[in-house]
């Protein structure tokens, strides 16, 4: 194992050393190549680098320059290691922008300690914690993955459109569950709805009938479950069906999966749920490109990674020179309307328009549109269980 690690690190170091030739524009790629999401990150990094390569190969980036990605490990969980690696990228490698980081905790640490103080733009493809919206980022932090807070709003809107005004809420007792439950409660109250109870549940218990008893005592007819489908969330649904407490469930993205419908089948009919992602034209085009490049297109945050990479390249072009400040100033402009819409695979077209002094609106694989704090709203699928299967009824 140690040997394997050593060789991969060596290989990685060599690879980045050979790619980064003199004169190339260096961009940091810092995501968790080791750690809890190490199975996802190779495709994410490859996807971002696909965008860099597309920009470089077009020959149109700042008069024919090329982007050299420099990979570093964020570890996903170790904030100290991630900060040290980011420091190295910014001071030693002198990168102009950073693609990353991945997990919300290390992303916040890098932004606060290194990137923002040094005036380097970070574009995260996957940090979804609502807490990052309130980051004092001075306009240097962007993310192409929607905040969990957004999902709460989407669920509240779905319920409003269906005329549901009174729900009981139970959430898994961690940052994800609590964040989603809070954002949902705020949005739901704004829509005129009433959350009769918002109770947490612990994962990994044998029996949830007591929890369900308390939830049912409120008299609400609908139960929103913001948990995990192979954990406490499943236990809550099971106990609800057993005691007849609830028939109608509202399911957060952690509850969407075939194992839920396999377990409960048609007794969940009429339940609704939301999950990030959509079937836009951009997503289809990107899917084909990813297939060609040997990247797993349905992996999480792969499209978001491509978009993050493309946005960095396009902002550079818009500022006319590869400078840290220029990238920051132009990020919003290239991502948002007005301008010519740029789809995946059309980076060359975007670079050309920008070189001629035109304006673009990057759409990309995930319908990128930043709000004022530099976050995408993202697309969500509204699902309904019909005949014991999840079916997409609408895209939000």
């Amino acid at each position, binding site marked *: 194992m140690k040997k394997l690690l050593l060789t991969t690190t060596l290989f990685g170091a060599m690879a980045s050393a050979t790619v980064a030739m003199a004169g190339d524009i260096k961009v940091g790629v810092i995501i968790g190549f080791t750690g809890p999401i190490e199975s996802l990150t190779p495709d994410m990094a490859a996807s971002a680098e696909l965008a860099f390569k597309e920009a470089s190969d077009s020959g149109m980036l700042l008069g024919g320059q090329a982007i050299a990605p420099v990979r570093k490990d964020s570890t996903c969980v170790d904030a100290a290691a991630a900060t040290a690696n980011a420091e190295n990228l910014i001071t030693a490698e002198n990168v102009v922008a950073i693609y990353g980081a991945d997990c919300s905790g290390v992303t916040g640490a890098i932004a606060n300690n290194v990137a923002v103080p040094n005036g380097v733009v970070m574009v995260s493809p996957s940090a979804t914690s609502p807490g990052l919206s309130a980051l004092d980022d001075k306009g240097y932090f962007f993310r192409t993955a929607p905040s969990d807070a957004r999902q709460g709003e989407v669920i509240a809107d779905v319920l409003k459109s269906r005329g549901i005004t009174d729900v009981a809420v139970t959430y898994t007792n961690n940052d994800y569950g609590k964040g989603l439950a809070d954002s949902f409660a705020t949005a739901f109250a704004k829509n005129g709805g009433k959350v009769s*109870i918002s109770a947490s549940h612990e994962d990994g218990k044998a029996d949830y009938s007591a929890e369900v008893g308390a939830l049912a*005592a409120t008299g609400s007819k609908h139960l929103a479950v913001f948990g995990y489908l192979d954990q406490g969330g499943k236990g809550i649904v099971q106990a609800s069906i057993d005691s007849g407490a609830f028939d109608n469930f509202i399911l957060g993205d952690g509850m969407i999966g075939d194992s839920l419908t396999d377990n409960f089948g048609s007794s969940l009919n009429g339940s609704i749920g939301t999950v990030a992602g959509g079937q836009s034209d951009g997503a289809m085009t990107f899917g084909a490109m990813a297939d060609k490049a040997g990247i797993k297109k349905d992996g999480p945050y792969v499209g978001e990674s491509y978009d993050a990479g493309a946005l960095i390249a396009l902002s550079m072009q818009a500022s006319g020179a590869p400078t840290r400040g220029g990238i920051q100033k132009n990020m919003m402009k290239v991502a948002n309307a007005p301008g010519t819409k740029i789809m995946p695979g059309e980076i060359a077209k975007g670079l050309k328009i920008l070189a001629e002094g035109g304006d673009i609106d990057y759409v990309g694989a995930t319908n990128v549109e930043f709000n004022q704090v530099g976050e995408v709203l993202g697309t969500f699928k509204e699902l309904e269980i019909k005949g014991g299967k999840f079916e997409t009824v609408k895209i939000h």
Partner: protein
Amino acid sequence: MTPDLLNALVLITNYVIVPGLAYGSQLALGALGITLIYGTLRFANFAHGETMAFGAMMAILFTWWLQSMGISIQPLPTALLALPLAIAATIAFALFTDKAVYKFYRKKRSTSAVFVIASIGVMFMMNGIVRFIIGTNDRNFADGERYIIMARDFKNMTGLDEGLGIKVSQGITVVVAVILVGALFLFLQKTRAGKAMRAFSDNEDLALLSGINPERVVLIAWVITATLATIAGTLYGLDKSFKPFTFFQLLLPLFAAAIVGGIGKPIGAIAGGFIIAFSEVTVTYAYKKFLTYIVPEGMEPNGLVQLLSTDYKFAVSFIILVVVLLVRPTGIMKGGSV
């Protein structure tokens, strides 16, 4: 009775009485095992929760084997058929630990504190063995019919607003517990071996003087304990789902039940099991809906009327345990003082 009153009654039955009865039966069977070992071997067996896990695991393995051969006893769960095999395996395992561990300390006439610590060691060993064989994941092995009566059907049948759902596993749990407890008391009161056990438990020296073979009493105690543990563990797993970690969590309510009832006293263990189960359920239940049905209109409570959040369920056993130890250390039935 007015429909409101009926609704209130059904509501309480559905959320408090039925789950309380099933959980109480499971605790009672587990606490009986602890009490029997305490009575005969004179130590608190911390490995009992893991013995239940081991028994339930064997039941699952045999259930899979039976299922793979296409044997089932619809509408009852196959696990019932697997029980005798699982019990035999667990008895063998319990006797093996007795021979390998406890016998040594019996010969040395060690104090009960030494036995307790040895049993903690056994607990960790069994803990590891169970996880090694079946893994740490959740396993659902209940097959056959799931409900005796479904909440939805009950509502349609009676026209009431409240449903009453009773699971097959809950029904089986209560019935099996009643049969087992009856059989155990017959054994203890009427048979020679049972009388010998009681005599040994009451006064070891006198029993030895009257020619009772101590090794035989110990053997019988392990056989009964392993049987009870396997059945209790399997019923618990059928009713909820099998996960090794939950049996470790069960240890606290089990000991609370045994001590509250009076450790060493079988009747006390049963009473203790139901006291703990019903305290947990009634204290954490939210009575808002119930009160809304029974109080006059306009006086409905606004809050949930929940004494303790469900997160603190296990704290209830702790509180009862502490209060009993302070006020009446020998428990309800005047068992051994701990």
